[in-house]
């Protein structure tokens, strides 16, 4: 069952088109990464599907229409920055969310334990650090045990320690089998956590699918040889059908092989031409490399 079905969603701010006829389907149980450079329309998309802003065209439907026109009580969401009443403490803010979600006796102890805020539960929200605010927002997302979690740049503005803490919490939640929609430009984060991904740029969907299917199967290869052979090797690689992209930096070549070829063939080619390779490393392509290639093309 699709948890979220988006059809031809469009949003314009004057002449700027923030979302351009966007289609997307997210199935139950997926950990779905929404990737895109800053200003690509990720937050706009999430704000529309959470009824915070209005679209100019297109439709979206949550849970196949199962919960009518207000399904948001079954969704936990952190959109951009955490927004709470600054003069209320963690308990009071979470209780408010529980009232809105119509959850009786929310497990506040458990939630505050999970986000490590139990010691500061009586402190006013305004006294929290950014990391603590972000963690409280995560706890708020989990009230009512929602079917879907939407997390928009959950590690934004955090220090490295805070990032790791938040990432661990998300991984714990993901392990429970919940559907998660994670918008981020932290590509390694998405690669580690997500099962599916969509890449958006200027409001248009450029690619979507399983993370594995998005990643190019061809690895990136690094190689080097004796300095006296570098020019000879460059000419050999440039004029060879094995290689699709070639870069030379500080005496080290970085290249991509055409489909169907293996790194070992490079070693053989060099040897047959009297060049002895000193270094040959094959690296699987990262989501970051794929993202850059898709968004630049």
């Amino acid at each position, binding site marked *: 069952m699709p948890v979220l079905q988006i059809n031809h969603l469009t949003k314009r701010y004057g002449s700027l088109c923030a979302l351009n006829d966007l289609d997307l389907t997210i199935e139950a149980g997926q950990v779905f990464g929404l990737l895109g450079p800053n200003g690509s329309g990720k937050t706009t998309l999430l704000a529309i599907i959470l009824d915070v802003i209005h679209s100019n065209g297109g439709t979206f439907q949550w849970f196949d229409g199962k919960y009518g026109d207000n399904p948001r009580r079954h969704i936990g969401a952190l959109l951009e920055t955490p*927004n709470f009443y600054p003069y209320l403490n963690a308990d009071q803010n979470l209780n408010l969310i529980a009232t809105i979600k119509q959850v009786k006796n929310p497990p506040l102890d458990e939630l505050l334990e999970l986000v490590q805020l139990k010691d500061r539960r009586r402190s006013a929200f305004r006294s929290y650090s950014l990391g603590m605010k972000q963690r409280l927002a995560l706890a708020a997302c989990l009230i009512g045990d929602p079917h879907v979690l939407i997390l928009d740049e959950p590690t934004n503005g955090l220090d490295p320690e805070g990032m790791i803490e938040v990432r661990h919490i998300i991984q714990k939640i993901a392990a429970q089998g919940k559907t998660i929609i994670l918008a981020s430009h932290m590509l390694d984060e998405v690669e580690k956590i997500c099962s599916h991904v969509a890449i958006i740029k200027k409001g248009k969907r450029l690619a979507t699918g399983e993370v594995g299917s998005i990643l190019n199967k061809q690895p990136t290869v690094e190689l080097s040889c004796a300095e006296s052979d570098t020019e000879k090797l460059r000419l050999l690689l440039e004029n060879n059908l094995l290689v699709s992209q070639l870069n030379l930096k500080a005496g080290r070549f970085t290249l991509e092989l055409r489909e169907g070829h293996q790194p070992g063939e490079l070693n053989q080619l060099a040897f047959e031409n009297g060049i002895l390779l000193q270094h040959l490393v094959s690296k699987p392509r990262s989501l970051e490399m794929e993202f850059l290639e898709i968004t630049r093309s």
Partner: protein
Amino acid sequence: MNPFHLLHLEWKKFAPNGTFRILALFYVVFYILSTWLTFLIGQHSTFSFHGASINPAADLFTFPRLWELIAYIGSWLNLLVLGLMGVFLMTLELNNRTLRQNVISGLSRSEVFVGKISAVIAIAVVATCCYLLLGAVSGGLTSTSITLGTALPAPDGILRYFVQSTGYLLLGLLIGLFIRQTALATIVYVIFFFIEFIFSQIVYWTIWKSRAVFLLPAHVLSNLIHFPVPKMVNNLVGSQTMAGPTSDMGWIFATGYIVVFAGLIFWRLRKIDL
């Protein structure tokens, strides 16, 4: 969610807030203080007004005229404190982006509207209770002969107080929703009354010499409750020369403005990008 749940939600949001508490306290304390000072200044004096001799201690500070005086004192606090409370009820949410978070968490925009209207009605009810309580206590202390007929306020007077409170609160809420910034919205709320006064005077004296000019919202709301002395003088001298503006039209227009304010708030809440 039903309106009582939504009112409870508003209570949870605002009851612990410092500014809200100060405004509420200000309303109660200044209401008592202003009434006490009026009594203190007026109790040993007599004054002449349009040829009629008035003894406040006997004529104004006792039942049933006292109800009008207490309502008049309260009407200034309604204008100043309740209006600002209305502004604050909205701008606090918009500045902290908590209205946005409420919607994300599952509140529909219609529920946001019902919640705010419930809060406005509840505050207006409490304000009206303050008026009744202060009137009853003051009258009990100052009146010598108390009968049920004189000690009870006119139902129409209670309703006027409630409608005026609701009107000012809604006007504040509306201005807060459009301006969004607390300080700016407060200034706009205060300036609104001056601008309307100046505008209506200019129109009346230069373009259109009709009382219809004074049917603008601020004038209509403030005219729901009158200073009791002119009416008292009319009774004393048996003349209608000091009569205030006709009240029935004011009623209709005040109710109409309340419906318009509420409608605009609903429309804006439905359309706004949070």
